[in-house]
C-alpha cells in the first residue's frame, strides 16, 4: 500500500479496541457447590469455550437494577450492617471507610457468583491496646449467598457471613441476613434487609443466646490468626435491619440508606471512650460517580460523621483493551485439479527447502509476537503431508491466538502438499502441548458463520514430542540474549510503626538462552530511595528465614536479586523436569530440582521439588551465611474449570518446619489472577508468633491489561497480614506447572473464541 493510500485510509477507531484478553477428586462437587459454579461440564473440552446461557456467571455482565454496594467493612451490606446481596462476579474493590477514628481499608473480591472474601487493615486511632499508641489490626471476612433473590417472586436473597474469622477477633462476628428488592416507579428500587448477628453483631439489643453463652472475648496482644470454629454463632444474638433506596430517573446514581445496628461498640464506645454511642440508627447517602468510584457520607450512632470511598474494578470486564490487527483471510491453495503441478512433494527433495521455509516463517510470526524455535518438514519426523512448527508465545493471554496465527501463517507460506499443521507450544524451551490443525479445515471454515466452534471440533491437542530429533532451529536462534532496564517499586506493608514502607530504584534484568531449555537469567537492583530497611526486626523463635527482610532491604549498593542457570526438559509424554542452580531469591540460593506429571488433557497434575539452599548474605552479593536447609514439596494441582484452580503443597519449609500449603486461585481471561493461600506446619501458634500461621492473598496483573499492548510482563504480589518464619517456601522462578499448563488442552480451549483474531 502506498503512503498516500495509507494516509487516506486513516483508521484509528477508538471503538475498535478489544480485550484479550482447569481425574476427579472427591471434593470437586463440594467445591463447585460452594463456589456457586454450574455442574461439571461434561461436554468435550473442545466445546467448553461456548458459554451456555444458563451459566450463572453471565448474570453480572450488565449492571444490575440496584447496584450491589458495600458497607464500612467492605463487604456486601448497608452502612455498618451486612445485607444478603452479592457483588458482581469477579469484582475487586478497594474500600476506605472512616468514622470516630476507626479507619478500615479493605480489599474485597467476589470469589465466585455467591462467595465474597475480604482482607481488611484497621486503624483504631488513640486506642491504647497492648502498648500501641494507635492500634492496627488485620482481618479476613467471608460472605456466602445461600439463596439468590427471585426478583419477580417472593423469595429474598439469603446470606451467611463470618467477620474477622481469622484475625485477633477484635471485629469478630457472624450473621445470617435476608434481603428483598422492590421495584418502584420510574425504575427506582428499594431493598429491605434484616438479619441476626452474633459476636460484635450480637452486642446490642440481644434476644438470647440460642447456641450457647460461652463466647471468648477479644484479648489485646493475642497472636490471633487462628480459626476459632468453636465461637461461631455463640454468645448473645441480636437482630439488625435496614433499608436502601435508589431513586429512579435522573437521581439513579444516588442511594439513601438507613439501618438499625446491633453493634454496641463495647470496646470503642465503652472501655476506650473513643466515641459516644447515642443511637442504634445510622443514616447515609451515597453517590455512584461512575462504574469505578462510589463515595458516601454518613451519620453514625447519633454522634459521629463517617465517610467511605469505594474504588471498584472487574477483571472480567475492565482493563485497557489490547488492539490486535485482523489477520485477513486464510490463504487458499490453488485448485488441485487445475494446477496439479503445484501440489507435488518434489520440493521436499530440495535440501535448501527447510531453511528457506524457516526464513519465511520466522520473521512472519515474529511480527505477530510469536517466536519460531523449530521446524520439521514432512517425511522427517512426521507423515508425508505434515509439517511441525515449534513456537513460543510472545505475550498473548489467549494461547488460541498463537495457534490461529501460526496456522494461518503456515497456510500462507507452506507448499500446497502440506495438509496437516502440528503446532508445538513451547515455554522457556520446554515443549508442552501439540495442536493439530488440518489446512483444509482452515480453508473450508474461514469466512463461515460458525467458524470458531467448527474449527474447535476439528482440532486436537496432544502431548508435544519428547525428542527434538529432526527439528531444525532458525539460524541464530541460540544464543539469544534479552535485557531490560527500568524502575522498580518494592513495598512493605502492615508494620505497626509505619503501615506502608517502600523502596524505589532501578532494575537491570537479563536473560540468556544458550540452547533449547538452557537459560541463564539475572536481576540486579540499585535502590535509589526508600525506607523499607528502617522497618522493625521482629522477635522470632524459629530460624529467621524471612523476618530479617529489613536487613536485606538496607542496601544502598547494587544487589543481585536473582542469578540462576536452569535447564528444563521433557522426559516422557507426560513428565517434565527442571534443574536450577544459583541465587534463587534475595535471601536464598543453592541447587534445586523439580519433576512434574501432567497429561495434556488432564485437569490434575502432580509434582515434586527438592532444593538444598543456603541463606545469602545481607548485601546480596555472592556470599552465604551459615544456615543451610534441605527443603522440598510434593504438590498436587487441579483445574476446576471456569478459571478456578487449586494447589496443595506438602513438605519441608525453609525454617525446617514440615506442613502443607493450600492455594486457591481464580484466573480471568485477561490474565488477572486473584488467589488465597494458607500454610499450616508443625510449629505451634506461639512459636510462629503474630498471626499464628502463614496466610495471605496473591494478586497477579498482566501489564498488557494496563498498557493495551501485547507482552508477557506480569506483576505478581503476595499480600500477607504478617511475614513470619514458619511456613516460608523458597521463591523459585520458572516452576514447571505454570509453564506446562499454558500449552495444554484446558488453557488452549478456554479461550478458543480468540482463534480467529
Amino acid at each position, binding site marked *: 500500500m*502506498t503512503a*498516500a*493510500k495509507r494516509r*487516506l*485510509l486513516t*483508521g*484509528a*477507531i*477508538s*471503538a*475498535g*479496541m*478489544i480485550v484479550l*484478553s482447569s481425574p476427579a477428586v472427591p471434593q470437586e462437587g463440594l467445591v463447585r457447590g460452594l463456589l456457586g459454579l454450574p455442574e461439571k461440564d461434561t461436554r468435550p473440552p473442545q466445546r467448553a*469455550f*461456548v*458459554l451456555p*446461557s444458563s*451459566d450463572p456467571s*453471565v*448474570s*453480572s*455482565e*450488565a449492571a*444490575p437494577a440496584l447496584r450491589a454496594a458495600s458497607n464500612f467493612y467492605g463487604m456486601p451490606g448497608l452502612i455498618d450492617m451486612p445485607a444478603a446481596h452479592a457483588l458482581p462476579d469477579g469484582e475487586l474493590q478497594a474500600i476506605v471507610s472512616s468514622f470516630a477514628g476507626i479507619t478500615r481499608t479493605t480489599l474485597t473480591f467476589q470469589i465466585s457468583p455467591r462467595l465474597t472474601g475480604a482482607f481488611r487493615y484497621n486503624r483504631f486511632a488513640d486506642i491504647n491496646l497492648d502498648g500501641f499508641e494507635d492500634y492496627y489490626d488485620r482481618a479476613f471476612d467471608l460472605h456466602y449467598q445461600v439463596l439468590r433473590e427471585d426478583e419477580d417472586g417472593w423469595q429474598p436473597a439469603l446470606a451467611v457471613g463470618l467477620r474477622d474469622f481469622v484475625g485477633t477477633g477484635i471485629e469478630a462476628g457472624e450473621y445470617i441476613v435476608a434481603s428483598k428488592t422492590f421495584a418502584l416507579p420510574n425504575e427506582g428500587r428499594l431493598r429491605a434487609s434484616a438479619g441476626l448477628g452474633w459476636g460484635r453483631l450480637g452486642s446490642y439489643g440481644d434476644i438470647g443466646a440460642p447456641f450457647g453463652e460461652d463466647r471468648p472475648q477479644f484479648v489485646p496482644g493475642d497472636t490471633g490468626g487462628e480459626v476459632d470454629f468453636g465461637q461461631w454463632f455463640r454468645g448473645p444474638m441480636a437482630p439488625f435491619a435496614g433499608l436502601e433506596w435508589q431513586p429512579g430517573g435522573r437521581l439513579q446514581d444516588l442511594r439513601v440508606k438507613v439501618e438499625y445496628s446491633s453493634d454496641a461498640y463495647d470496646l470503642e464506645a465503652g472501655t476506650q471512650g473513643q466515641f459516644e454511642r447515642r443511637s442504634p440508627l445510622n443514616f447515609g447517602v451515597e453517590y455512584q460517580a461512575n462504574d469505578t468510584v462510589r463515595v458516601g457520607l454518613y451519620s453514625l450512632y447519633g454522634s459521629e460523621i463517617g465517610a467511605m470511598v469505594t474504588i471498584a474494578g472487574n477483571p*472480567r470486564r475492565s482493563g485497557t483493551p489490547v*488492539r*490486535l*490487527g*485482523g489477520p*485477513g*483471510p486464510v490463504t487458499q491453495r490453488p485448485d488441485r485439479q487445475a494446477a496439479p503441478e503445484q501440489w507435488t512433494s518434489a520440493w521436499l527433495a530440495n535440501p535448501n527447502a527447510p531453511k528457506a521455509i524457516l526464513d519465511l516463517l520466522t520473521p512472519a510470526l515474529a511480527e505477530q509476537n510469536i517466536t519460531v524455535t523449530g521446524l520439521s518438514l514432512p517425511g522427517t519426523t512426521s507423515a508425508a503431508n505434515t509439517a511441525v512448527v515449534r513456537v513460543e508465545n510472545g505475550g498473548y493471554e489467549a494461547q488460541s491466538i498463537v495457534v490461529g496465527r501460526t496456522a494461518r501463517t503456515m497456510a500462507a507460506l507452506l507448499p500446497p502438499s502440506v495438509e496437516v499443521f502440528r503446532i508445538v507450544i513451547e515455554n522457556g524451551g520446554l515443549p508442552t502441548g501439540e495442536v493439530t490443525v488440518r489446512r483444509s479445515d482452515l480453508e473450508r*471454515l*474461514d*469466512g*463461515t*458463520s*460458525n*467458524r*470458531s466452534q467448527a474449527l474447535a471440533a476439528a482440532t486436537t491437542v496432544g502431548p508435544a514430542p519428547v525428542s527434538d530429533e529432526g527439528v531444525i532451529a532458525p539460524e541464530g536462534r541460540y544464543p539469544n*540474549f534479552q*535485557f531490560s*532496564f*527500568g*524502575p522498580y517499586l518494592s513495598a512493605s506493608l502492615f508494620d505497626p510503626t509505619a503501615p506502608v514502607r517502600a523502596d*524505589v530504584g532501578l532494575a537491570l534484568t537479563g536473560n540468556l538462552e544458550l540452547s533449547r531449555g538452557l537459560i541463564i537469567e539475572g536481576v540486579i537492583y540499585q535502590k*535509589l*530511595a526508600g525506607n523499607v530497611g528502617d522497618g522493625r526486626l521482629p522477635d522470632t523463635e524459629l530460624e529467621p528465614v524471612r523476618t530479617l527482610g529489613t536487613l536485606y532491604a538496607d542496601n544502598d549498593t547494587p544487589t543481585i536479586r536473582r542469578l540462576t542457570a536452569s535447564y528444563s526438559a521433557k522426559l516422557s509424554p507426560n513428565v517434565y523436569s527442571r534443574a536450577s542452580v544459583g541465587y534463587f531469591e534475595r535471601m536464598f540460593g543453592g541447587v534445586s530440582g523439580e519433576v512434574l506429571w501432567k497429561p495434556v488433557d488432564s485437569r490434575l497434575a502432580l509434582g515434586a521439588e527438592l532444593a538444598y539452599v543456603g541463606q545469602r548474605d545481607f548485601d546480596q552479593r555472592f556470599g552465604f551465611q551459615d544456615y543451610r536447609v534441605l527443603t522440598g514439596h510434593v504438590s498436587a494441582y487441579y483445574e476446576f474449570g471456569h478459571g478456578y484452580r487449586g494447589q496443595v503443597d506438602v513438605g519441608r519449609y525453609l525454617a525446617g518446619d514440615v506442613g502443607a500449603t493450600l492455594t486457591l486461585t481464580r484466573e*480471568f*481471561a*485477561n490474565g488477572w489472577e486473584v488467589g488465597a493461600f494458607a500454610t499450616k506446619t508443625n510449629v505451634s501458634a506461639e512459636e510462629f508468633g503474630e498471626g499464628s500461621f502463614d496466610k495471605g492473598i496473591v494478586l497477579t496483573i498482566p*501489564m498488557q491489561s*494496563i498498557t493495551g*499492548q501485547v*507482552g508477557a*510482563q506480569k506483576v505478581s504480589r503476595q499480600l500477607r497480614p504478617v511475614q513470619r518464619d514458619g511456613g516460608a517456601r523458597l521463591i523459585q522462578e520458572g516452576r514447571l506447572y505454570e509453564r506446562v499448563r499454558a500449552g495444554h488442552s484446558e488453557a488452549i480451549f*478456554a*479461550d478458543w*473464541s480468540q482463534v480467529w*483474531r
Partner: protein
Amino acid sequence: MAMTRAHVRWIGLILASVMLASCGTQEGPGTAGLIFERLKGAPEPSRFSPSRAELAAAGVNQPLLRVVTQVPVTQSAGYILRGQANGAQFYGANDGSELQVRAGLIQSTVGFVGDLDGTNITAPARAIATGQGRYSRVLRHRRSEGKLFETQINCTVTRVGAEQVVILGRSHNTTRVAESCRAANEDPAGRTLAFENTFWLENGAVRASEQWVSYETGTLRLEQVLP
C-alpha cells in the same frame, strides 16, 4: 507549598525512571512508557471523508467501505478489501480492525469491543434483497472472558421505500429496507436484545447500511464507496 530542590530531585528521578523504562531488547516504548501514553489521554477521533479525486490520486481503486462508529465517539475510517474466503469479504482498516461482510451484511468483526464472532447470513441476505421475510438468526459474540455467547433472535424485514443516499459526494438512488430483530429470550442479565438495522439497496446490492454489532460497539454505518 513551594517546590524545594528535594521535590525537583524526586520529580526528576521519577521522570528518569519512566524514560529508562524504555531501554531493553524489546521493541516499543516499554511498560512505563506505555502507561505514560495512556495517561496522555485518547487520540483525536479519526475522520475519513476524502474526495473522490483524492481517492483516485492516491491510487485507491479496490473495493472500499467507509465505516462510521458511534461508540465511544463518532468516528469514521476507510476499510479496503483484503481478500475473500468462502464468499465472505474481509475489509481491513489501518488500525488493524477488520470486518467480514457477506452480501453486504456484517458476518464477523475483529478489533471492536464486544466483537461479533459470527452470525448466519443466508436467510437475512435473501430477505433483505427481496425486501420482505421472517427468519431466525444466531449471534455469537466474543465476550471478555474469551468465551462465545450465543443469542437467538427473530427478525422481520420490511421495505420502507425509495431514498437517495450520498456517499462521499456521489448520489445513489436506493431502496430502504428495515430489519427488525428481537431476542427470543431474556439474557441472564435480564435484558431482551432488540435492534433495528437499515439497508439501502442499489440495484439489489447493499450500498449503505446501519447494522448493530454488539452492546459495546453499538451500530456501525457502512457505506460502499468503491466500487
